[in-house]
């Protein structure tokens, strides 16, 4: 009987063919001496390919479809779809159907732009007529661009246009032309008018323009798993975790000021109290959650309407004293040396960057309070950091950390480990 792992692992055509041959071999059929292309050999190849085409994927997907850890959306690691364009797939369907939880998709950045008519005469503009550009170069060398999006409350002329008097400034909605966080812009960054219908214009954005990446699959799975505890009126720890990240309708909790989704990825909930108190600490990927995130989470937890949060969940039972705040950052400087054997494409810069990227990803997963917690306080083990460095790039060996010193770094109650490490902190020897 196949193991569970074999059930959710898609069998390849070669494996199916090997299985047929193994059975035949066990039946003392001399299958290994067949000539390639011989009818019998070909029939086995055909059967293997037919099974691969018609049942393997279906069967593997079948078992995967039951479980959050095995279900994926296109674009997620391990997804079997031919088209890997990130989009909602079975994981999103499973999460929404069974757990009432909606995965945040990649969004186009939207916001408001201040457009000034610098010409001597009035200007009449139409939706989607303008292209604006950020003044900040992105990692790929490009600049995000935006269009003035339609809004009947702004473009109020009878023909759907907007008239701007000479020297006047209007606030117009804009939408990015590139997906995701690539086009996110901080105030004052969108200052270039690339194209316009006519006239002379200048622009700036006084508020952030936010686009978001698709919610990481594991973050989404964790939100799904807290869904059941939202039902309990008694205040289990997971109810607080759920409310810190998820709105009543199962969608990602929005920041109360309208600047996108709450970025909280880690929530510590105190486990016990003799006096009826609950204390929460919040962190995002790179450290303590910001003030807007914390206020948004607290509002949803305590059931208080705040800005965009119009239907808060409210999970704190009567008679319970609740307090929630940002985690306190404990910075850990990580530096050291390692070696790697010379091979094509390996440079010290690549390895150093991979180490920093690996550490950054790992720190984003460290729980508030660290590992092996006692009463909410724990540690980060130095040997674990060495392991992370070793795993950050294939072939790294002889990792030695000059920092942090000692076997572990203490993480106090309510604290979250924050990485301090740049490529310059590493000495990589190519041997």
């Amino acid at each position, binding site marked *: *009987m*196949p*193991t*569970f792992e*074999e*059930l959710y692992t898609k069998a390849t055509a070669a494996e*199916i063919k090997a*299985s*047929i*041959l193994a*059975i*035949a071999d066990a*039946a*003392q*059929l001399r299958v290994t001496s067949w000539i390639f292309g011989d009818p*019998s050999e070909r*029939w*086995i190849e055909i*059967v293997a390919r037919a*099974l691969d085409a018609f*049942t393997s994927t*279906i*069967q*593997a997907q*079948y*078992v995967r*479809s*039951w*479980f*959050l*850890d*095995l279900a994926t959306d296109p674009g997620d690691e391990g997804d079997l779809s031919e088209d890997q364009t990130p989009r909602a797939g079975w994981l999103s369907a499973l999460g929404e159907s069974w757990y009432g939880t909606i995965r945040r998709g990649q969004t186009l950045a939207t916001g408001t732009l201040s457009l000034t008519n610098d010409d001597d005469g009035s200007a009449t503009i139409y939706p989607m007529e303008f292209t604006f550009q950020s003044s900040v170069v992105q990692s790929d060398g490009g600049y995000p661009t935006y269009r003035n999006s339609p809004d009947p409350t702004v473009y109020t002329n009878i023909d759907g246009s907007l008239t701007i008097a000479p020297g006047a400034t209007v606030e117009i909605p804009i939408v990015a032309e590139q997906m995701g966080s690539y086009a996110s812009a901080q105030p004052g960054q969108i200052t270039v008018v690339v194209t316009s219908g006519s006239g002379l214009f200048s622009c700036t954005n006084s508020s952030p323009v936010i686009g978001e990446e698709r919610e990481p699959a594991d973050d989404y799975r964790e939100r*799904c*798993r*807290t869904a*059941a*505890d939202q*039902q*309990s*009126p*008694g*205040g*289990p*720890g*997971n*109810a*607080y975790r759920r409310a810190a990240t998820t709105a009543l309708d199962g969608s990602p909790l929005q920041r109360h000021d309208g600047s996108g989704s709450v970025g909280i990825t880690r929530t510590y*909930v*105190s*486990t*016990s*109290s*003799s*006096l*009826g*108190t*609950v204390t929460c600490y919040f962190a995002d990927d790179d450290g303590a959650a910001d003030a807007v995130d914390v206020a948004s989470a607290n509002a949803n937890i305590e059931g208080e309407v705040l800005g965009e949060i119009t239907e808060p969940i409210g999970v704190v*039972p009567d008679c*319970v*004293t609740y307090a929630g705040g940002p985690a306190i950052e404990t910075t850990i400087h990580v530096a050291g040396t390692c070696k790697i054997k010379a091979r094509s494409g390996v440079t010290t810069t690549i390895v150093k960057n991979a180490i920093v990227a690996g550490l950054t990803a790992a720190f984003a997963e460290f729980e508030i309070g660290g590992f092996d917690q006692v009463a909410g306080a724990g540690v980060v083990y130095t040997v674990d950091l060495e392991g992370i460095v070793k795993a950050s790039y294939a072939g790294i060996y002889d990792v030695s950390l000059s920092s942090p010193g000692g076997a572990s770094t203490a993480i106090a109650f309510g604290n979250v480990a924050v990485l301090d490490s740049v490529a310059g902190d590493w000495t990589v020897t190519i041997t």
Partner: protein
Amino acid sequence: MSVFQQTIKAYAPPSWGFVRNLGKLLESVGATFDGAMERMYLSRSSGLVQTSSFGAAEPVALAYHARDRGIRIYPTEPIDSQRYRLSRFRQLHQRRATHRGEMENAQPYFLPGALPLMRIVHQRGNGASCVWHTFTSEGVYSSDQKFPSNWDFDGVRAKWSRWWAIVYVSGTRIDGGQTTYGDGSVYNGGQVYGGLSQQTIADIVSLFEDWKSAHSTLWGVILTDDNTLLSPAGTSTTDPDGWTTYPIGNWGYVIDPNTGLPTRDPRLTFIHDLGQG
């Protein structure tokens, strides 16, 4: 499940049956098809946490279900209990962090066989009363508020969100183990109190602990094989040896620091005890 392996030859021309190797080849292909069908069948049944005529998820798959359903599986938890709790995960979560829910989560652990009577008790902050929550072996829940209080564990009334669980193990599958203290001379190898393994005790405590609210503290878990002890309506009496049948502010210490006498009913075994508040 060897169906197609046998029937595949019926679809071949009769003359093929006389070709020995061809028959083996057909059987090999048929067996592979059978294997594919078995995988499909097992894939389908892996979604079923309860045993049924359509099969059931293998124990290893139950761990995946447990993770998704927020139900922790314990090392000594019988498979019957795992399947039951996983199948009732919505109901369990619905009452999680309530005292009824804590008992509902723990009781299936004693499957198969008779389920234990359970109680949870806590004292109100003003000390005037206490509340007893009872969950019978038949699954009937009731609560009793006792005026005046018959549960003052250690005299620390201000710590109002503490609670204690009592499991009456008489007739359950763990009843064969000694659940009261022996003569105190030895701890038996790898066992606690001569009966239950340390892991069993840890699991019973965790079943309550994991299902409690964030704002409360499980202060003690008590096992007894005498269903008449610690009933909600009772009042404390003092034994000539000094111990009392209910706590009257004296159970924070096992030995009374003033008199040197035992404080607790020896028919009760504390498998989890945070002591004086």
